[in-house]
């Protein structure tokens, strides 16, 4: 998987709408003298975009793995805890209602993604019977529906501005230099660190709540912390690349099927690598296949990931 990520990264840096020789790419990265256009294309466009693809892909892969482990549900993804619905609402709020404040888009998507997840956690984890998986999932579906309805209402009210938001909804990386990453990286860092700390506890949780408790773990706290890590990562990812929740659902399954193990020691780090590799490769394909026209990456991920996933499912069966 590491080799796939390295290959996808090299392709992402070397390929684009403008033909730049590999030597030109390497010279730019090494800080050597190159034409200004070449330097601008590599430094302003391809490098930040490749880094974003790696981080977003890894974040979604890890978020999906954490959620599926925490909720002990193979259908869990950032959609389930309301993050996707919340982030989508936050983004469309800025794009459609306050287009002149477009710079706030990542912040708004991040805020509403986390806000939606917080609502789900409060409903799902507090009070009598808090932490019950079914309750968390149902709360997530309800909150997601609430935000989706809000998004649809704004879109219906401002139809002339909807085209501006389409690319966010279908998911896609855009060129914003390092600006968005400068805002979002602390959240990604917190999410990755939390997820790393959850690897062993999630493995204990796989043995069942009673066994985990007998080993000194606190199942409800593990679930909440792992879901929180997933919410932070998925919200941060959505604020950069729009709604690409498909990655969070499919990648952990793919890794379990490929690796033949459900251990989070394997699933979480390899999901990060696989998510990063798939998104980087998909983005390269999306911006080169019809160049100079750029396609949104969301549909390409589905085209790349679904056949592989179905093949593995059939093979495993």
């Amino acid at each position: 998987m590491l080799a796939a990520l390295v290959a996808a990264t090299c392709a992402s840096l070397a390929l684009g709408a403008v033909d730049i020789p590999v030597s030109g790419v390497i010279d730019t990265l090494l800080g050597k003298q190159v034409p200004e256009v070449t330097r601008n294309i590599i430094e302003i466009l391809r490098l930040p975009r490749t880094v974003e693809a790696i981080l977003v892909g890894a974040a979604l892969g890890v978020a999906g793995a954490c959620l599926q482990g925490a909720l002990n549900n193979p259908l869990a993804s950032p959609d389930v805890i309301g993050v996707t619905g919340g982030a989508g609402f936050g983004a469309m709020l800025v794009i459609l209602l306050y287009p002149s404040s477009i710079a706030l888009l990542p912040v708004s998507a991040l805020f509403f993604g986390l806000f939606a997840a917080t609502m789900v956690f409060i409903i799902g984890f507090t009070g009598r019977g808090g932490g019950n998986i079914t309750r968390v999932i149902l709360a997530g579906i309800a909150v997601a529906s609430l935000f989706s309805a809000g998004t649809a209402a704004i879109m219906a009210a401002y139809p002339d501005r909807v085209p501006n938001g389409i690319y966010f909804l279908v998911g896609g990386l855009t060129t914003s230099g390092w600006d968005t990453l400068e805002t979002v990286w602390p959240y990604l860092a917190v999410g990755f660190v939390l997820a790393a700390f959850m690897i062993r506890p999630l493995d204990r949780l796989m043995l069942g709540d009673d066994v985990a408790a007998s080993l000194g773990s606190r199942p409800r706290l593990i679930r909440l912390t792992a879901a929180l890590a997933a919410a932070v990562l998925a919200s941060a990812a959505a604020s950069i690349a729009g709604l690409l929740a498909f990655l969070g659902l499919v990648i952990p399954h793919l890794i379990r099927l490929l690796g033949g193990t459900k251990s989070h020691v394997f699933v979480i780090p390899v999901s990060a690598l696989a998510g990063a590799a798939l998104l980087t490769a998909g983005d390269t394909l999306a911006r080169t296949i019809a160049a100079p026209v750029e396609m949104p990456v969301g549909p390409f991920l589905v085209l790349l990931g679904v056949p592989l996933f179905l093949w593995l499912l059939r093979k495993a069966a």
Partner: protein
Amino acid sequence: MHLDAARPKPRLARLSGVVTLLAAVLLAFALQAPSADAAKKKRVIAISPFAAQTMVQLGYRPYRVGMTLGATKHQKRLLKGIPAMTLSHPNGPNLELVAKMRPKIVFSSNRWSRGNKAMRQLGIRVVVADPLTPASVKKKVTQIGRILGRKKQARKLNKKITRQLNSATRGISGIRPRTLVVLGIGTTAMAFLENSWGGRLIRMAGGKLVTGNASAGGGFARISDEVVLQEDPERIVVVPHGTNDDLSRVAKWVTDNEVYKSTSAGQSGNIGISGDNTLLQAGTDLGATIRYIRTNFLKNW
């Protein structure tokens, strides 16, 4: 006797001549008047901004016009006092309200094709008379004039459009500034292509459109920023979707954009923002629009 009897005849003949002339004049007026009156009585709704402007300039007041979102000052002045209808996807106007108004004709655009079909089912004559290119503006003016019985006025308006266009395109030199026109300010910017309304106007105004040779039926495509850097536009025009009340913030977003900042346009401060729908929607004021583009964006006036 014969002579006496014949004497009044010349008077009668003269009188009958006068009467005949009077009758002919009255008949001529009578033939003219009913069509004009009937036309005045016709309720005509102009959903498309182009048809609305054309109607007013032909001296025919629309019963209702589509909402004037993003209209220029000139267009707003033309349509002042005419009640506007709210338009929304997918039909355009509210079909029940249209049915209640019982218009004879609705001038619409292909954008509202679903609504057009429904209005036709209601027995309303729907005419799509929006020009897709500046070259077809005069043809559409003639069509609207013919439908409204204002052929003469349409000819006059077409002459005026030609005159203004000739005046506005005078003095365009061989050096054409490379111009990127982008639509929208969301997470992605769509470039105006050669076959878009705005793209054609830019070319008529003396600009050379930056498109990376992309093509798309709709006239817009999300082109790679790499192509933007490579083609290095000398002018950038941003057209935000819909209206934008805070152009200074939009301007900040645009000028902060790393890619635009690196181009010749960004470095020479030649990034402009179009605060209305001039580059998006067809209008009869072609000459004024081209002059506006040359003065504010291309700076070749």
